[in-house]
């Protein structure tokens, strides 16, 4: 009897802590995951406000202005989509550090130069709207003292492992790139959604436009 009681007591003492530890661990895990996600979204939400300020300042001063003192990137352009009435600021470089805060421009081809300027953004934050873009939509990109106009000519899915875009590519244009599929959970997959736009014109960005940018 004593044997059984001891065992019984042992079990009763041991049983709840395991379940409880597990529960607590799960809750903690949940919390850290929530925090990581929250951090990503918070960065994505907060950074553009600072970046916009820096962009306006850089437009006024014709100089590189860092959005916060320790930033290793700075805004170089502003992308606008009239049909969706939205704008996105674009940072220099498309490394992970830059893309955490805003869309980023690959350094190879400057906007307006011959070739294709590539701007990348995260599918779950800044470039989520890429799925809503349609062939024929117009885009504009303010870069330095120019506003460059583009028209979307194609939307394709590409594979980052071979780097090929199966579309007719314009001589001068813009590639907006984000990960694909849009609703996938795990980052790092090889799919890329690419919006191809050809340059249809450019104009000098007047002081009025810059002022306009300042007001916004």
């Amino acid at each position, binding site marked *: 009897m004593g044997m059984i009681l001891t065992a*019984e007591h042992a079990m009763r003492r041991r049983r709840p802590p*395991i379940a409880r530890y597990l529960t607590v661990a*799960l809750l903690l895990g949940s919390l850290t*995951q929530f925090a990581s996600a929250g951090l990503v979204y918070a960065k994505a939400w907060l950074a553009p406000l600072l970046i916009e300020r820096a962009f306006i300042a850089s437009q006024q001063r014709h100089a590189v202005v860092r959005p916060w003192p320790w930033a290793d990137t700075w805004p170089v352009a502003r992308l606008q989509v009239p049909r969706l009435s939205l704008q996105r600021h674009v940072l220099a470089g498309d490394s992970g550090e830059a893309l955490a805060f805003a869309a980023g421009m690959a350094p190879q081809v400057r906007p307006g130069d011959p070739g294709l300027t590539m701007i990348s953004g995260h599918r*779950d934050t800044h470039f989520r709207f890429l799925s809503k873009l349609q062939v024929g939509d117009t885009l504009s990109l303010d870069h330095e003292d120019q506003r460059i106009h583009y028209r979307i000519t194609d939307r394709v899915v590409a594979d980052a492992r*071979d780097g090929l875009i199966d579309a*007719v590519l314009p001589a001068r244009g813009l590639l907006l790139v984000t990960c694909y*599929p849009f609703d996938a959970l795990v980052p790092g997959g*090889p*799919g890329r959604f690419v919006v191809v736009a050809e340059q249809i014109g450019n104009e000098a960005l007047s002081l009025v436009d810059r002022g306009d940018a300042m007001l916004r």
Partner: protein
Amino acid sequence: MEMLPTMKRPGEVWPWPSRRRWLFAALVLIATGLLLGKVDASNAQPAAPGVAPAQELAAVDKSIGEETVGGPRLRLHGSSASIQDALQLESRLELQISGLLASATLLQTFHNPGQEWVEAEYLLPLPHEAAVTQMELRVGERVILGEIRERAEARQVYDAARRAGKRSALLEQQRPHLFTTRVANIPPGEEIAVAVHMVLPVRYEDGEFSLRFPTTVTAPYIPGFPHPPAQSPLAMPTWLPLDGSGWATATQAVPDAPLLTAPQQRSATETPLENPLSLKVELRPGIPLAEVDARYHTLAIDRRDEGFELAFSEGTVEMDRDLVLSWRPQERHRPQAAVFQETFEGERYAMMMLLPPVADAPVPRQRRELVLVLDVSGSMQGAPIRQAKQAVAFALDTLQPEDYFNLVVFNDRHRVLFGQSRLADEAALDEARRFVASLSADRGTEMLPALSAALSLSVIDADLESASPLRQLIFVTDGAVGNEHELMALLERHRGDARLFTVGIGSAPNNYFMHEAARSGRGSAVFIGQASEVSPQMRRLFADIQQPMVTNLNVDWPGSAEAYPAPIPDLYAGQPLIQLARLSGPLREGRIRVTGTFADRHWEQQLALPREGDDAGVAATWARRKLDGLLRELHRGIPTEEVRSRALPLALKFSLASPFTSFVAVEQEPRRPEGASVSGRKVPNTRPQGQAAQRFAFAQGATSAPLNLALALACLGLAVLMLRLQRRDSWV
């Protein structure tokens, strides 16, 4: 002891009864399954059809080019046009070859499988030397002949017919090798065929006859700044598009860019083909042949009484590479000279061919200064860049220690390897070889500054002990540019003493550019379409470079004659002299006297001009060669209007398609009902075989936030579940 345990085996500490345990296990399984399912979807082939929304699925392209490593790709289109609505194109090429001229008919059927009336637009590549003499519209059994009209007028006739609902077709020339076919009012579910007739010259070089017919076009690079066409300083009014319909906008360098830039589709590797082509060739060489072959296709060869009948052995092939037919006469039957004649509108036209002498002794080798110009632009990606690099390596291997050399590499910028041409010692050659090996192809094709740099490279020191070396430029490219005019103009002005040789790379090089640049640079053109051709073609090129040329050529025709090409170009060994002449005067027969200089010696030969002949196509070919000469004046800066005023009457008289004249065919009675509208569709060309799409290095395009969120929710869910289970089980 209400808590007396159910009897358990010793050591078992699992807190729940078995029913709950199973329930829990099932829940965990389902949660993990859901999570993994998501993970799988995101890591799977991005183009797996199930992943994309069904309405976006326009075409799943399963073909994998030589270069691509990815799986099937998916094209997404915003419009609702589905694959069923795409126009289907079917082509048939019929060739009748006898002597040095071939007559060709390209019959293209545009089938409209959709529910609405459509207008088709198709960028049609044709041999750049062809005289396009007729276009006709075929509806069922009926044939409606096209008329040659002035370009703008033809456009008006066609537009009016399209608006009126009449079935009609328009054939416009954009470049010597590029045309646009438009077919209006194709009824739903029906088809319209367009037949284009032409005469094309057969090449005869190094004892081999050949004929090259393009089937697709390498998408050209359009340099320059976007520019409204009307304000363009280089605007050639009659060449301009009336509507911007291509994927490129007009630039100051290429005012007609929209007309040269058609959509492209991947080449299908299995049936059904994207753009199927069938072939029927009647070859009547008139001499015993040793060999009949096609460079990039396999042929079914049928021997007939008078010659051969050729077809593709597969029946139909994809239109993704040039068709190159070649036939070689038996050694002792090689023709040395020939004369063909035709009477057209009461006038006599003649075509003569004569093979100049061949060097009987090897000639002493001359020192050379070789400048290699290599195109590493995006259109060269894939097989082309590998072949181009092999060609350059071959050229470097031919250099002797006393030669000088340099290397210019370009895409949208250019780089000159050495500031000044260097002696071809081992160190310099090694450096060049390493540099070439490190190259990869991408970005644009700014050919003008690169060619300009190559032409103006500082010539090596003049105080050499011997005579200055022969300066030779070898230009390795696919010629995929839209600014041929600018480039030719540059060559006309700056070629100097240098000779320019072109090496055309790829399955569908710009044949016009290759031949015209080489002609302008007094060199020759060779073509490399696959790796196995690198060494024979390069060997041929260097044989040309080494051999002395036949120069100062002159042809005296009996009576007076207007002959083309004029002036007569110098000839390389193995090249025949070909002249086309319009003869006038009373003399019906006589002798053609040819003189020239070969290896510093005067050379003369005579040919009998027979009384008359009946060889179709001679007159049209004469007119076409005359037109070539007139259009070349544009490169020398003669105003377009002046050239046009002379070219237009010629093209109209001989019924030739030209930059200033188009063919238009219109059915008399309207077909399209009043209420129905007609919508425009572009028929894509097939991307040249072996050519890769441009490659990009993509950034990472997703954060971990959604995964974090999902994991957070999953953990939270499990925690809640555990709490509830524990409460019920243990602490109730």
